[in-house]
């Protein structure tokens, strides 16, 4: 199966949204990044 490409623009927007909406965003950002990495 072909590897799924990372949509950096989407990832960027999602991380900024998490950053803006969370008081302690580190865990949520890490979770999102791992989700994108493992969703291959």
């Amino acid at each position, binding site marked *: 199966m072909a590897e799924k490409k990372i949509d950096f623009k989407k990832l960027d927007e999602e*991380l900024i949204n998490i950053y803006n909406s969370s008081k302690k965003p*580190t865990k949520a950002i*890490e979770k999102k*990044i791992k989700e*994108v*990495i493992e969703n*291959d």
Partner: protein
Amino acid sequence: MIEIEGENIGGLRGPFKFTLQNGLSMLHAPNGSGKSSLLRAFHLAIANTNISQEDLNNYLTEKEINGFVKVFIDENEFEVQIQRKGEKVIITYSNVDDDIFKFPSEELSFIRAKSDLYQGIIKDDDTFISSWFYKVTEAHKYELFLEISTNTLTDYKTTRDDLKKKVSKDISRNREEINKLQKEAEEISGKIDSMLDSEEYKLSMKEHSEKKDKIDKLRELINKNLTNRKTKLSDEIFKEEEAIEKLKRELEKIKKKIDNYDANLPIMQEKLRKNEKKRDKLEEDLDKTKDQRLTAQQNLTSIRNELKENEELINRETCPKCHQKLDPVFYKDLVAKGRAELKKLETQVKSLKTKEREIFLETNEIEDELRELTNFLKINRESLNKDRIIKEKDVKKKNESLPDKKKRRKQLTDEIEVKNKELLAIQEVLAEEIPLQNEIFKLQGEFNGKNKLINKSEEEIEMSSEYQLRYLKAEGHVKRAEAIHKCYSERFHHLTFETFKQINEALMASFDLLNLAKLKKIVFDKKENKLFLDIQRANNVYTTLEKLSGAEKSLITLIITWVVKQMVIPDEPLFIIDEVTTEMDDTRFQDILNYISNKTDYVIVARHKPYKGKQENLAQSHIISTFV
């Protein structure tokens, strides 16, 4: 071309409309004429960013309820409605395309005197400058993304490296092991085959098949016939011995009881005799008491009659029988004495009755006891004797059948021993006659052992394949983690180090161009999370921001803002400067604006101080001097 039209924005009360050409547009008019309001109108229409309520109040003309702004830049249209509701001012955007002109911060495209950067430079305050930088670039977000993506990458690399070690180590070791074992197993198998195929083995097997049959028959005889019979017989003997033991124990108990009975018999007989004596005495007492009671009862009757007669005579003057005169006092005394006597006798009779009853009960008790004692002794003795005789007979009977069974068992044991000896002798002969057989068995065992080890190693390899798959997956994760890490590393690098490099180059170029203070460099101190400027005059003397001239401060603000805008939002075509250039003389003003407008589509400058230079000195520019 930019077209802007609107109504009631800041100092521009009522409707207004302007057209600005590509390049530099300079709005020149006195203070309070509405230059800043026009710039605000631009900003409001295109900024699409959060504007504070305080600022919004300044955007709508005082005492007006509604206003609007429409801006056409090239083929893009921006429109915003502005309304006063109570004390609040509300804005509503329309025709905003999300993909264009999205400002991370208004301060990147709209320089004003109150900009944090300008204020920081005027006051020589690193905190102001740093906070401006982080706000407009959002570098802190990317710094965090970079940090997290770095840690994540490390985690994935660690997982991958661990799996790699496991995969390479296990597979290579196990494959070598399997190859070695397979070779050894093949050798053993070859040996077995050659032995089985050998003439020696075939011949010996044929010759000895008769002996093998005999061995089988002997085994069957020993195992199925003799041993089974012996086991059965042993079970019977064991059970019978157990039963005899049980009977003996019971007999022993009965004998003990009989001995006990016999030992206690004289005591019990003595007790019986004493009780009989006691009973006889009680019966005697009872008769005596009964006699006393009867006498007392007779006296009682006699006194009662006498009393009755005397009571009658008390009230008479003469005797009814002899007619003599009677003394009432005498009879009264007599009656009183008679009553006392009567009472005494009644008490005596009552007491004798009670005594009689007690003796009677005691006699009954003694008699019951005597009866029980006599019966108990009589019954136990007979029953015990009966039991003892039965048990003794049982034991005798069982003991008679046992020796015969034991004898038969002994015979069977002897027979088994003989047959076993016979079997062993034949087996020994067979083993001597077929030496290859034992060797084949031994080799077969070795072969099986090798195969077990091969299977184990293959299982481990299978597990290694699992690790291999996991390793490949982990490798993929590392690649993706590296890509994300690279993205944020480049982004952060771009927003910080690359931006500082650009700022430094632009500042040095512009300072050279304008022949102002020589700026050595701008430094980003990551540890302190601060930006600070390191400034050097032409004579190599270091100075502070505070000591710079107003023009130099304006220049630094302008250049830094413009460079950062170019780095963060390079496609944004608009750059608005509100009054910050006032301190510059016309030559420097035109040089720096030419420098900026050469690289930006639309530069709009508001300036109350008149520009006295020639317009042709300002490249691609037009000056609007009387727009109000």
